[in-house]
């Protein structure tokens, strides 16, 4: 980004610039997935346990990613990186599984159909997240 001076690049930069927006999106998705999963687990666990547990899991991973991005430091960056990778794998595996084995997923999760119920944001988000983390990592090393 032209508005980020090279000398301003420190461990804190994950949450500045585009990272600011990324944290906001992750925060909203953490809330959406967790609240949805917890509500469904509490009210109708028997109907689709796999889907509901996955929703909660996805929510927790989004939350970890949001915190990892928002906090300064190398450990947080690693946490954010790992959670983005898990997310990427999750949305691809669950997306494919929901299409191939619809009987396992009688109810939708954030990752079903590659995130089609959420404007495909769950599919794009980990890609953008990884791009941003790796970019900052490279800037920081130089």
């Amino acid at each position, binding site marked *: 980004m032209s*508005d980020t001076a090279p000398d301003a690049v420190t461990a804190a930069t994950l949450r500045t*610039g585009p990272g600011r*927006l990324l944290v*906001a999106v992750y925060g909203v998705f953490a809330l959406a997935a967790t609240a949805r999963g917890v509500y469904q687990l509490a009210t109708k666990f028997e109907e689709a346990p796999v889907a509901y547990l996955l929703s909660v899991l996805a929510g927790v991973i989004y939350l970890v990613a949001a915190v990892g991005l928002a906090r300064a430091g190398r450990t947080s960056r690693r946490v954010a990186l790992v959670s983005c990778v898990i997310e990427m794998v999750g949305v691809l595996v669950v997306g494919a599984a929901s299409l191939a084995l619809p009987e396992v997923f009688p109810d939708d999760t954030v990752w079903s159909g590659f995130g089609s119920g959420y404007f495909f944001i769950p599919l794009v988000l980990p890609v953008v997240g990884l791009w941003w983390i790796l970019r900052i990592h490279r800037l920081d090393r130089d």
Partner: protein
Amino acid sequence: MVDWLTMTIQVASLAMAGWCLISTFRDRPMLVPHLIGMGVLWLLVLGQAVATVVTMVGGERPEETAMFVSYLATVVLLPPACAVWGFMERSKWGPAVIAFACLILPVLFVRLEQLWSPVV
């Protein structure tokens, strides 16, 4: 829920999103007018929330009350949270945060209205 308030909030929120997107593309940070805009939007949301809670205390409740209340809490908290988060960022990404928040706010209100009076 007050129907016209929901409509007003949705239109105001989309207008706010458009304004902030323009600021983002023109490479402007979030300024005081943006903050005032978010304040007005938040007041509208608070008004709707208060009116709705009063109605609920009066006995009229949606079927999925817990779900409804959690959505209501989310729409009340979203504008101030995003305004603060966006205002802290002194680049064009500040208004981008607000634009994102203002784009999901109308969607949340659609869900709220659905929960309030489900069309079967």
